[in-house]
C-alpha cells in the first residue's frame, strides 16, 4: 500500500506545517517563479492571438461539455472502428476492476505507466498491487514520488516539493529495491539524476509488454488519443508494449481533429513554458505492424457527471491540466500541493476536488476557502476557467450546510449592522467610544490576525460623523 492523502488534515492546518517548512518554501518559490517567467515569455510572444486562442479553447471545451453524450458516443464508435476496445467506468472501483481484468488477460504481472492524473485519482497502482500486479511509474517525477513512497504535489511536476539533493538521496536509497541500482557516486546534478533514471528504466521499457496511460485529449470525430510529454517515457510506453490500456476522464474529449490547432499551442506554453513540449504522440486505435496491437480505452466518470450537473461549477471540467494556475498561485507557492489533500492541488484542485468528491468531508469543505480570490489563476488559465467564481459558488454551498455556527453568527450580526445606516452609525459611535479598550492581541479566531499583524487604531469619529460637520461648514 503506497502513501495516501487520507489523514492529511484540512487545509488551514496542513498549510501551517508547510508554511513553516523553510526548505519546502525555498523549493517551491524557486520552481514556481522559474516556470512562471518562462510561461510569461512564450505567452507574450503570441501577442493578441493568445486571447483568441484562450477564448476559442474555452468555447470548444464548453461546447463539448454541453453535448458530452453525443461526443462520447462518437468517440466510442470511432475508436472501435479503428480497432480499439472501449470500456465505461462509473467510478474508481469499476475502472480499477476493468484495468485489473485487462492486465490479467495479458498474463503479465508487470506494467509500465505513463504519467496520468486519472490513474492517480482512482489509485490504480494500489488496486493493481492488491491483484499481484506491479505498476512501474516511468515519468521522472512520478518515479521519484514512487521510489520515495511520497505523494504527488503538483499536476505537471509531482515532485516539485523536492530539491535535487533530496532526489539524489531517494535514488541512492531506493532504486535498487525496484530494479537497476543508482550508480555509486551519484551527484545531485540534474543531468546525472536524469541519466540514472534512464539507466534504471531502460531495461524495463524493453521488456514490459503491457502499458497503462491516460490522455490529454481524445478526439471524437477521428477516435484519436493524444499524449503530450517531455522525456520519451510516454513514447516508450505507447509504442513498445503489445497491449495499451488508456484511462481517460470523460471530460477530455474535443470534437474534431482541427481543435488540436488550439490546444497544441496553449497547453505546452501554459504548462512547461515551452513553445512545444519535446514529444507528443497521437494514435487512433491500432496500426497493424506498428505499436501495440491491442488497445483499450477506459472512459471514466468518477464524479465528473456530478460536476457537470452544476451549471456554475461545470467549467472546472474544461481544465486541460496545464498547471499554470498552480504555478502562479501565491497560496500554492507557500503551501505546496500536499496541503490540498488530493491529487489535484492548487486553485484547480480547490474547485475540482470538492466537486468530484461531493463536499463529503472537512477536508473538502475547507478547500474552497484555500484562496485569497486574487484572480491570478483565472488570468493565466488557457481555457478561461473563472476559478474565483467557482470558489465563491462552492463557499455558498458550504455556508448553506450545517455547522460553521460561529461564522454564521458573525455574518448575521454584520448583516444586522449593515442592514441600516442608523445601525451602522450607532455601531461606529460605540466602537469610537471604546477605541482605547482594544487589546493588542485578540482571542479566538481574530488571533490569527494579531499574532503577526498590528490592528489599525479605531478613529474617534467615523467618516459620516465628519461629513455631517463638513456639510454644515464646520470642518
Amino acid at each position: 500500500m503506497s502513501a495516501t492523502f487520507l489523514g492529511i488534515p484540512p487545509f488551514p492546518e496542513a498549510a501551517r506545517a508547510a508554511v513553516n517548512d523553510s526548505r519546502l518554501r525555498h523549493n517551491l518559490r524557486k520552481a514556481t517563479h522559474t516556470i512562471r517567467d518562462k510561461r510569461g515569455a512564450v505567452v507574450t510572444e503570441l501577442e493578441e492571438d493568445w486571447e483568441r486562442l484562450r477564448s476559442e479553447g474555452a468555447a470548444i471545451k464548453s461546447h463539448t461539455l454541453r453535448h458530452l453524450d453525443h461526443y462520447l458516443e462518437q468517440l466510442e464508435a470511432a475508436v472501435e472502428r479503428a480497432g480499439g476496445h472501449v470500456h465505461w467506468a462509473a467510478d474508481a472501483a469499476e475502472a480499477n476492476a476493468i484495468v485489473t481484468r485487462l492486465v490479467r488477460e495479458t498474463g503479465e504481472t508487470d506494467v509500465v505507466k505513463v504519467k496520468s492524473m486519472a490513474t492517480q485519482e482512482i489509485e490504480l497502482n494500489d488496486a493493481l498491487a492488491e491483484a499481484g500486479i506491479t505498476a512501474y511509474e516511468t515519468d521522472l517525477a512520478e518515479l521519484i514520488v514512487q521510489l520515495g513512497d511520497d505523494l504527488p504535489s503538483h499536476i505537471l511536476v509531482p515532485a516539485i516539493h523536492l530539491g535535487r539533493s533530496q532526489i539524489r538521496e531517494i535514488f541512492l536509497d531506493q532504486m535498487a529495491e525496484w530494479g537497476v541500482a543508482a550508480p555509486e557516486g551519484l551527484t545531485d546534478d540534474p543531468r546525472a539524476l536524469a541519466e540514472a533514471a534512464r539507466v534504471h528504466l531502460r531495461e524495463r521499457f524493453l521488456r514490459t509488454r503491457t502499458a497503462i496511460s491516460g490522455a490529454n485529449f481524445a478526439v471524437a470525430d477521428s477516435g484519436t488519443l493524444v499524449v503530450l510529454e517531455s522525456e520519451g517515457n510516454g513514447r516508450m510506453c505507447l509504442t513498445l508494449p503489445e497491449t495499451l490500456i488508456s484511462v481517460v476522464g470523460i471530460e477530455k474529449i474535443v470534437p474534431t481533429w482541427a481543435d488540436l490547432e488550439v490546444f497544441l499551442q496553449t497547453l505546452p506554453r501554459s504548462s512547461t513554458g515551452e513553445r512545444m513540449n519535446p514529444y507528443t504522440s497521437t494514435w487512433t486505435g491500432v496500426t497493424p505492424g506498428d505499436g501495440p496491437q491491442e488497445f483499450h480505452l477506459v472512459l471514466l466518470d468518477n464524479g465528473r457527471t456530478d460536476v457537470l450537473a452544476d451549471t456554475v461549477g461545470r467549467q472546472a471540467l474544461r481544465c486541460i491540466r496545464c498547471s499554470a494556475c498552480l504555478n502562479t498561485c501565491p497560496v500554492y507557492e507557500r503551501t505546496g500541493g500536499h496541503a490540498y489533500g488530493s491529487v489535484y492541488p492548487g486553485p484547480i484542485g480547490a474547485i475540482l476536488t470538492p466537486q468530484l468528491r461531493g463536499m463529503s468531508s472537512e477536508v473538502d469543505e475547507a478547500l474552497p476557502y484555500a484562496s485569497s480570490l486574487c484572480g491570478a489563476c483565472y488570468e493565466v488559465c488557457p481555457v478561461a476557467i473563472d476559478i474565483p467564481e467557482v470558489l465563491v459558488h462552492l463557499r455558498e454551498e458550504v455556508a448553506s450546510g450545517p455547522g460553521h455556527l460561529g461564522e454564521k453568527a458573525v455574518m448575521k450580526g454584520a448583516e444586522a449592522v449593515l442592514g441600516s445606516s442608523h445601525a451602522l452609525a450607532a455601531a461606529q459611535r460605540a466602537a469610537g467610544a471604546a477605541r482605547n479598550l482594544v487589546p493588542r492581541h485578540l482571542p479566538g479566531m481574530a488571533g490569527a490576525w494579531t499574532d503577526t499583524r498590528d490592528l489599525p487604531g479605531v478613529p474617534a469619529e467615523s467618516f459620516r460623523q465628519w461629513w455631517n460637520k463638513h456639510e454644515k461648514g464646520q470642518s
Partner: protein
Amino acid sequence: MRIALFITCVNDTLFPDTGRHVVRLLERLGHEVVFPEGQTCCGQMHYNTGYRRPAAKLAVRFVRTFEDADAVVVPSGSCAAMIRDNYPRLGGSGSRLSRKVAGLAPRVYDLTELLVDVLGVTDVGAYYPHKVAYHPTCHGLRMLGLGDRPYALLRAVRGLELVELAGATECCGFGGTFALKNGDVSSAMGADKARHAVESGAEVLCAVDNSCLMHIGGTLSRQRSGLRVAHIAEILASTEKEDALR
C-alpha cells in the same frame, strides 16, 4: 460635476481620513461631492464568504441609494470590483436587480478611474516630497484593469519619487476572511509583500485599497519597519500647504 461618494463600510469606520482626502481632492478640482446617507456596505464580505442572500440585500440597498447618481466614486478597488463584477451575478438573468445593476455599474468608478477617465486629469496639482512605492491590488489590477492610471497620477505629483516594487502583482494575502481562515498563509504572503516594500527603499507604500494596506501596514508596524502605508487619495489630496507628513 456632481459626484456621489460611496465611502465603503471599512473606510467609513476605520479609515475616515481617506474619505476626507477624496472630498478635499475632488472639491479642489472644482467638483461637487455628495454623500447619500443611506449607504452602508457593498456586501463583498458576505458574498466572498458564501453568504449570497445578505450580499444580494446589500446590493439592492446600494442600487437604491445610488441609482440617480451621475457618477459614483469608490475609494476601494475591491468594493468597486464587487459592484461592477459580482453584482451582475447576484440577481440572476433578467431580474430587476440585474437590470438596475446593468444601468448603474458603468457609472461606478474607482478613484483613479474617475480622475483619469471621467474628469480627464492626471496632474491633480498635488505635492508630496517622498519616495513612494505603488502596490497594485489584485482587484485593481485584474478585475478593474486600472493599468497605468494610478502610476500616471503618481508620476504627476510634484516632489514624489516613484520607486519600483518587486513582485508588485502578487497578492498581499489579505483576501478578506482568508486572513482569518488561513492566517498562516495570509501572514506568509503579507510578510513577503512587506519585505518587498521595505527593500524598495520607499518611505510610503500606497494602494487604492485600505483593506490590503491594513494587512500590509499591520505587518510593517509589527516589524517596526518605519515604512508607512497610505491610500492613494491621501497622496493626491496632499498639497504644499499641508503635506500630510508634516
